[in-house]
């Protein structure tokens, strides 16, 4: 019974070939909403009847099988997931089935089960507390990649979650929004992993590109930290929109931009001053001073029950520009300004129509 360390390794290798086809078929389904939409056309009509019965594992050793795939990498139409053994029907039994429902989180860390648990609280916030009103949600395309660009607001950024809920509840196709959150939040304990499990993704070009390439609906708040840290007197005055990274992103991934104006969020925690030096020492970007905050302790961070309105604007189509125009700083600057202008105009208009902060 004294198994040497190597015999175990060998045993494992003998097990590997039998698993190889299954592994390759399981690869067909990549997480992400887009993959699910794209799959049906890939089913080839010429295929033999789909193997409902367990497909016999191909009697080739794993490395050799990989070799055959490698022999013609150029022929692949799509860069991934097309090659593999002929039977591309996903296996739905045994270990592959286990793999199906196995992932706790998607590849960006979104945990649907966890979200379900805390959702009632945010639904309550959405329905009863902020009484969110949504206009123009039909401008969000029903499928395909799209970039939502919104103003950022509130000392505690709840707008990402509210925007997500708005699209899910109001949109005909109940699309899922993934929003990009500032780096700063991921430094912080609890808050970082919480927002990540709720569906937020760290804002960077790599992540956003990957999401859009999967035809996801991505929300960005280009004001970033400066947006959240706006003083009360600056409310609804859009800050600089970064360096136009979101326009470059849209150009590169050929995603349309939908400007979004969120009204109400900027009054939830009216901030009169920021304490920065002290806060930086503790590792947070700033400490807000609101009428209630340091005064009432953590309770003072409870947002005020303002009336929220979310306006989705007409999509700004960038189809006319090629991906290479992302390098054109002048164009990027102009487009950034155009998107910013669209949101600012909508905000100003909404503000002039609004009679009460509390009742809309």
């Amino acid at each position: 019974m004294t198994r040497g360390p190597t015999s175990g390794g060998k045993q494992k290798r003998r097990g590997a070939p039998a698993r190889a086809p299954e592994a390759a078929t399981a690869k067909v389904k990549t997480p992400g909403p887009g993959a699910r939409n794209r799959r049906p056309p890939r089913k080839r009509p010429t295929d033999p009847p789909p193997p409902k019965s367990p497909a016999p594992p191909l009697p080739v050793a794993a490395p050799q099988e990989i070799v055959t795939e490698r022999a013609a990498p150029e022929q692949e139409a799509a860069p991934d997931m097309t090659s593999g053994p002929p039977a591309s029907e996903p296996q739905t039994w045994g270990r592959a089935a286990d793999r199906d429902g196995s992932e706790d989180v998607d590849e960006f860390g979104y945990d649907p089960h966890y979200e379900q648990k805390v959702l009632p609280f945010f639904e309550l916030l959405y329905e009863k507390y902020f009484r969110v009103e949504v206009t123009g949600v039909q401008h969000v395309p029903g499928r395909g990649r799209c970039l939502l660009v919104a103003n950022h607001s509130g000392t505690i950024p709840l707008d990402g979650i509210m925007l997500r809920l708005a699209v899910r509840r109001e949109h005909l196709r109940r699309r899922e929004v993934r929003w990009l959150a500032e780096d700063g939040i991921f430094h912080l304990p609890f808050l970082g992993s919480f927002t990540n499990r709720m569906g937020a993704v760290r804002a960077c070009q790599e992540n956003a590109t990957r999401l859009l390439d999967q035809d996801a609906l991505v929300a960005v708040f280009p004001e970033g930290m400066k947006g959240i840290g706006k003083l009360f007197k600056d409310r609804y005055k859009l800050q600089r929109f970064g360096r136009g990274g979101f326009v470059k992103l849209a150009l590169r991934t050929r995603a349309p931009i939908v400007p979004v104006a969120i009204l109400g969020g900027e009054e939830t925690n009216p901030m009169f001053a920021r304490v920065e030096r002290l806060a930086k020492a503790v590792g947070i970007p700033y400490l807000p001073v609101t009428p209630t905050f340091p005064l009432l302790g953590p309770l003072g961070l409870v947002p005020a029950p303002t009336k929220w309105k979310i306006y989705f604007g007409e999509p700004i189509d960038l189809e006319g520009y090629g991906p290479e125009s992302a390098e054109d700083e002048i164009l990027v600057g102009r487009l950034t300004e155009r998107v910013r202008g669209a949101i600012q105009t909508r905000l100003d208009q909404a503000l002039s129509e609004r009679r009460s902060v509390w009742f809309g």
Partner: protein
Amino acid sequence: MGSARGLASVGASARVVAVTGAAGFLGRSLISALEGDDRVRRVVAIDVKPTSAARTKTRSYEVDLTLPAAETRVAEILAAERTDAVAHLAFLPGPTYATAWAHELESVGTMHVTVAARQAKVRKLVLWSQTWLYGAHPSNPNFLTEEHPLRAPRGEPFFADKIEAEDQARKLTQPSPGAVVTILRMAPILGPTVRNLVTRFLTRRLVPSMMGFDPLVQFLHESDAIAALRLALAHDVPGTFNVVGEGVLPLSAAIRLAGRIAVPVPHPVAELLTGLGWLAQLVEAPPAFLKYLRFLCVADGRKAREVIGFRPAYTSREALLDFVRAQSMRDVNLLPEESA
């Protein structure tokens, strides 16, 4: 390129592969795999002690890579055996207090091996590396590509030595342009037989975690690690590749799946205690490793899939479960503890 052709014609490409660190886990397993591979004519095992995996094809040489004379000795061996390819796997599986010795082995040892390979006109070098070298940062993208700078804490010898080793290996291509250098950056390896820092971490009854932090982690199954090494030996694929299992899971889920209890510790406290423990040589890893319990360090395996054709048979979760199955047997003494 001739890579695919060379493989298709089995027999014509009988090859000689040298493996450094042959007595370690990866070396041992790779040699067992190569012993059963008809395309490999001879395996040259280089380590300070003979490898237990040696069968008929393997010739073992005892060389201490930390000695200054190692370079000539390795060059002689490689030339005498007419080696085609070197798999350089002589790295420590975890941090050690003997940092000076580790530096000699990993950084200087890699220099010895690359220089020897150049002298012996070895055509190919495959280097084992780790995705940990990217470093865990809150500003990391969710999937690190190979172009991303290596931002592991340079002050920590464990990482610094391995980053230096990568640089040494890359230098090999400059004087000898025909040489192929493949660097495989592997995710933490889990499996039924491997023992390393991560398996020991997940074997503890109480697993410390950083309070309020739950980063995504990814793993690589041991058989996939060997498969990747074999692919790199069989094809000419110069460059650096992330070799990772598919999928990610939160660290908390990984600890739960391992059947362990997570003990959340505030990270300043953990850093202080680990720092003191490391000084007193009571803990296994220096405080720099705690960052990996707080922040993201997940690599993108797309390049390896597209260029080498590496498709891991196990997802991160399955690799973990495979380890857990064996570990639960070990917990009740139904499987012997593996060494190293």
